């Protein structure tokens, strides 16, 4: 690791201000992704602001009938929360499908949203990577790209977004609440929170310099059957090749979000609109504009089959 200095933030405003004022400063919460990348010198912060003691670890109802999840709520606690289990089952399921018990005990809600790609070329500092080193090229395009994204990709980057939790958040239309360096709070719809690579793959979110996530809010619960299906190379503790988050309504409608296939958690209105027409139609709508490589073209088929499996499961239950 490169040397860095360390401080504990005493307030949200202070954390944001410090982060904006110190070039190379980063927030640290769970640290499970940041420290990993710091050991490899892919992340090289000069100062770490420990935000673990800001009290942002509560889950509480909103006046609108939804839920406010503190930025520091650990993945284990969010998945096990009684309200989340009952009213936002897809979120519990997505969280439990991710990482290991040890990591979920440490990883936070905000940190999960901000985790970086698991593209092997991003991790291998001997390889070119526009995300790690802007302008250096992309080793993944033309490389071994089996795990990588097929939607939202660009000529500069085909890295996949690795999160399971964020896929459920996208499905549920969450909002990311932040405070900026100027002390001003704002709410960013999850659809706008993660940015597509384009020709600036090193920029991954709408957060501005110093801006800190304080909570994630969920709107009122969506009735219906909540499911999260993750397809991966191992039965446990592996990133998704394809994942589908879905809520099936009693009226035959449904909504869908996808992981493992997009440069960001993926959702399209057209896929939701096709819900009553079945798996094939939903897959076709969701995969519109997909750009595959020789190695990851299988993901299109896998999306359709994963959806088909969910539809069969739903029909068997009803």
């Amino acid at each position, binding site marked *: 690791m490169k040397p860095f200095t360390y401080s504990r933030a005493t307030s949200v405003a202070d954390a944001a201000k410090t982060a904006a004022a110190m070039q190379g400063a980063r927030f640290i919460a769970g*640290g499970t992704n940041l420290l990993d990348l710091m050991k490899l010198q892919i992340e090289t912060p000069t100062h770490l602001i420990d935000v673990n003691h800001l009290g942002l670890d509560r889950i509480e109802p909103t006046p609108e009938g939804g839920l406010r999840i503190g930025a520091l709520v650990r993945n284990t606690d969010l998945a096990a929360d009684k309200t989340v289990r009952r009213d936002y089952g897809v979120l519990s399921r997505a969280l439990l499908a991710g990482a290991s018990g040890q990591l979920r005990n*440490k990883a936070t809600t905000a940190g999960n949203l901000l985790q970086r790609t698991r593209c092997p070329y991003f991790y291998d500092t001997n390889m070119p990577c526009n995300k790690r080193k802007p302008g250096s090229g992309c080793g993944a395009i033309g490389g071994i790209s089996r795990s990588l994204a097929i939607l939202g990709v660009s000529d500069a980057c085909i890295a996949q977004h690795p999160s399971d939790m964020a896929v459920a958040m996208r499905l549920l239309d969450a909002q990311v609440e932040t405070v900026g360096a100027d002390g001003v709070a704002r709410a960013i719809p999850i659809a706008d929170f993660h940015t597509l690579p384009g020709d600036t793959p090193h920029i991954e979110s709408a957060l501005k310099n110093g801006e800190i996530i304080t909570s994630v809010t969920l709107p009122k619960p969506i009735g219906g059957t909540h499911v999260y299906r993750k397809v991966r190379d191992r039965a446990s503790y592996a990133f998704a090749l394809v994942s589908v988050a879905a809520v099936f309504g009693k009226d035959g409608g449904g909504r869908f979000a996808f992981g493992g296939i997009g440069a960001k958690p993926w959702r399209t209105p057209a896929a939701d609109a096709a819900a009553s027409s079945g798996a094939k139609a939903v897959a076709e709508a969701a995969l519109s504009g997909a750009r595959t490589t020789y190695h990851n073209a299988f993901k299109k088929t896998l999306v359709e089959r994963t959806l088909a499996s969910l539809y069969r499961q739903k029909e068997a239950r009803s």
Partner: protein
Amino acid sequence: MPSDHLTRRSLLQGSAAVAAAAPTLASAGAATARPTAKGETGMIPVELTVNGREVHLQLDPRTTLLDALREHLHLTGTKKGCDQGQCGACTVIVEGRRINSCLTLAVMHDGDTVTTIEGLGTADKLHPMQRAFITHDGYQCGYCTPGQICSAVAVLEEIAAGVPSHVTDDLDRVALSDRELRERMSGNICRCAAYPNIIAAMNEVAGEKKA
């Protein structure tokens, strides 16, 4: 490569020096100041309660909790495997929860309570999980075992507390099963594949608890 120019010779000389120094460090027993890497930017005081004992350390902020335990407190029961959160050999229990000690900084845990394998039991007075691992042959080479045992102890507590897992059918009804144990132990890898015996050991301890 980092900016330090290492030659094979200097590396070998360095390794020899470390090897020669090791017995002295191990026999020191108590916390000792460790030389820090070049470019270090100031030490930070860290207070921990480790296995019931209060310890005060001065640490480079880069020090992981794992290195604080092993290098500074000489609690070498906790193992360094992959050092990137994949293998689980470094699992310890902090504030009652199992975590990967390699993926967290010691300075982030100032004031925290840590339990390592040395704190669970001793050779004279084994923790029930340690005894069960012996009874059921839950290891071969033993390198992953301290992490497996810390994880196993915490897993039974998680199940008792009703924390669901990926394989829990009904999120509100968490029950013990081999399937649950296997899923929950997936963050601990055993190169010798002692997995079935680890599950047997956990079942035995869980059964004792129920009785």
